């Protein structure tokens, strides 16, 4: 068999759905974080007059969640929640903002029990679930940063040893930028997907109007999920894990390079091809003109790397790429080559067993095995019955 692109797109979509957060779990997480938000809002904080603002950031906000795998085992989802206090950065300190939020969480017996020791930037609540896959809710205390580029810029707290400082961030600005890259496809897929989600989970969603936008996935979002899962499995051991491409880099570059393709294969292959077009940068050679003009990945005269935050060019996501003889840059481009080979060249594989084996290794056996039929069986045509070729049939039996 050589694989049909339409079928392969449908297959990739299903696999991405498998590694995504499931709608029920999503609703569950939303309910929990809203409850945490209400609890924080109802607190009284010295010097605060306005209202707190609580909102998700990161993959949960962007719709690019991937069920994490650590040491080959599926682990808890990480959900980042910004807790923006109505305080001015110059009238308070990072330490007092961080401790106000921590103190308020500890006033609640449940949260006190779920709370981890203080983290570098956040307070973590550990929700374990009966089925073993729960989530960590990371609450990031923050204040509005009037000096930021956009009005949405915030300052988050940063604790190193016992010293606290501020770091710049802008999750709302980044979210809006991502949405703008995603909008064309979102408008085209949302109705059909909401119908499917509603039909698939009638107990969770009474009607399609109750299916949240946050559960719709465009080919861009799916491509990011697949790339992240591929990354997680490729770098799932200690020696390599610190050089693994970080999610914000994958997400940013993919969103920049996405060309509004509406099927999964074309979306993914477009992104991977354009990423490969940057590979010459490792040897400090020039890249193709139109990619160079975009300036997404740049080499500085001193050899250091630059991948800018699209809503804050002062922030360089690749600020550590030159370390250890450019280890992160090399790992990134080697990974891009592997994406091409593992997820795109597989179309030319003719042996179904090898297709299953290879895809299972790079995307997770469980997710791949379940949807392999899409690739192996001919797609049903309208008004013609599905065609099945029987191999290894069972002998019929009777109980008594």
């Amino acid at each position, binding site marked *: 068999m050589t694989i049909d692109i339409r079928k392969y797109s449908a297959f990739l979509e*299903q696999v991405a*759905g498998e590694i995504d957060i*499931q*709608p*029920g*779990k999503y609703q569950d997480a939303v309910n929990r974080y809203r409850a945490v938000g209400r609890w924080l809002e109802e607190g009284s904080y010295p010097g605060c007059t306005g209202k707190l603002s609580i909102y998700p950031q990161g993959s949960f906000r962007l719709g690019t969640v991937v069920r994490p795998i650590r040491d080959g085992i599926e682990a808890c989802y990480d959900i980042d929640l910004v807790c923006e206090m109505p305080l001015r950065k110059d009238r308070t300190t990072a330490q007092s903002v961080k401790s106000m939020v921590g103190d308020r969480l500890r006033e609640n017996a449940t949260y006190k029990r779920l709370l981890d020791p203080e983290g570098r930037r956040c307070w973590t609540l550990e929700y374990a679930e009966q089925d073993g896959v729960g989530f960590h809710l990371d609450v990031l205390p923050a204040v509005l940063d009037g000096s930021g580029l956009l009005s949405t810029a915030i300052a988050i707290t940063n604790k190193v040893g016992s010293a606290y400082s501020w770091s710049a961030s802008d999750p709302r600005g980044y979210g809006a930028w991502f949405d703008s890259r995603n909008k064309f496809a979102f408008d085209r897929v949302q109705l059909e997907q909401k119908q*499917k989600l509603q*039909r*698939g*989970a*009638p*107990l*969770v969603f009474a009607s399609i109007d109750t299916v949240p936008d946050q559960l719709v996935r465009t080919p861009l979002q799916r491509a990011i999920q697949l790339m992240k899962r591929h990354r997680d499995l490729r770098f799932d051991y200690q020696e390599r894990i610190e050089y693994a491409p970080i999610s914000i880099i994958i997400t940013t570059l993919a969103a920049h390079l996405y060309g509004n393709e509406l099927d999964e294969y074309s979306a993914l292959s477009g992104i991977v091809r354009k990423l490969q077009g940057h590979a010459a940068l490792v040897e400090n050679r020039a890249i193709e003109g139109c990619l160079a003009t975009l300036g997404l990945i740049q080499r500085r005269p001193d050899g250091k790397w630059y991948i800018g935050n699209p809503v804050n060019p002062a922030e360089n996501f690749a600020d550590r790429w030159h370390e250890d003889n450019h280890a992160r840059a090399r790992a990134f481009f080697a990974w891009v080559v592997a994406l091409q080979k593992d997820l795109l060249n597989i179309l030319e594989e003719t042996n179904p067993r090898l297709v299953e084996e290879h895809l299972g290794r790079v995307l997770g056996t469980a997710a791949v*095995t*379940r*949807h*392999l*039929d899409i690739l192996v*069986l001919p797609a*049903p045509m309208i008004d*013609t*019955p*599905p*065609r*099945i*070729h*029987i*191999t*290894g*049939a*069972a*002998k*019929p*039996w*009777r*109980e*008594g």
Partner: protein
Amino acid sequence: MTEDLQRQIAVLTAFHKGLANIARHDADTVVSGTLPFEASADGLETITESFEIELTVPDAFPESLPRVRETGGRIGNDYEHHNASGTLCLAVPVEQRRIFLENPTLLGFVNRLVIPYLYGYCFWKKHGRHPFDEAAHGYEGILRHYLDTLGLADEAKALAVICYLFEHGYRGHHDCPCGSGLRVRACHGPALMILHRTHNQQTVRSDFVAIFEHCFAKFQDGQLSFPTPLRLQILRLFNRL
């Protein structure tokens, strides 16, 4: 109904569009409708047919497999492979699980078990013989399955095999239950491993009961003898039931 099952049903109905009715009954989800197919098998003719079927999927799926009924009244009593309750006997339970686990989804279940069964029925109706052979009825069919997959002849050996699986799961360094005197891994290791992987707590237990019942009846008639270690093992296992 779990979310996972909801998604599996969505995948199933996207492929087999006629299975459009979904209802809840107690701890089961019932998916029913028309199942048209065009099926072929190596060296055999292509058959295009359509049946009305009803799949009863327990909440414990995939640990427990769905029950299937043909509701259009096509498969009559002249065809032996259904139960008194009308459910289709797709295969002996352990074989059904083995095939199911090759692609453990609802769609895989329909494509690899239900459609081959219906194809087999159509073929039998037309030619008077079973294209994929047929299993003996009842407990004997279960026992034969063990003898056939392991290439054994003595019925007491099938009992020794199921006792081994029920008591130990898979242990490569044990003596092979076939009685060859070799270690399992040097003898029936691969086939026993497949059986072990296929079983869950409940299926290994019910096969043990089935094979024991069958053999015990013959033992009482004096047609079968059990060596002493096997008798002691049976007693130990009965305490587990």
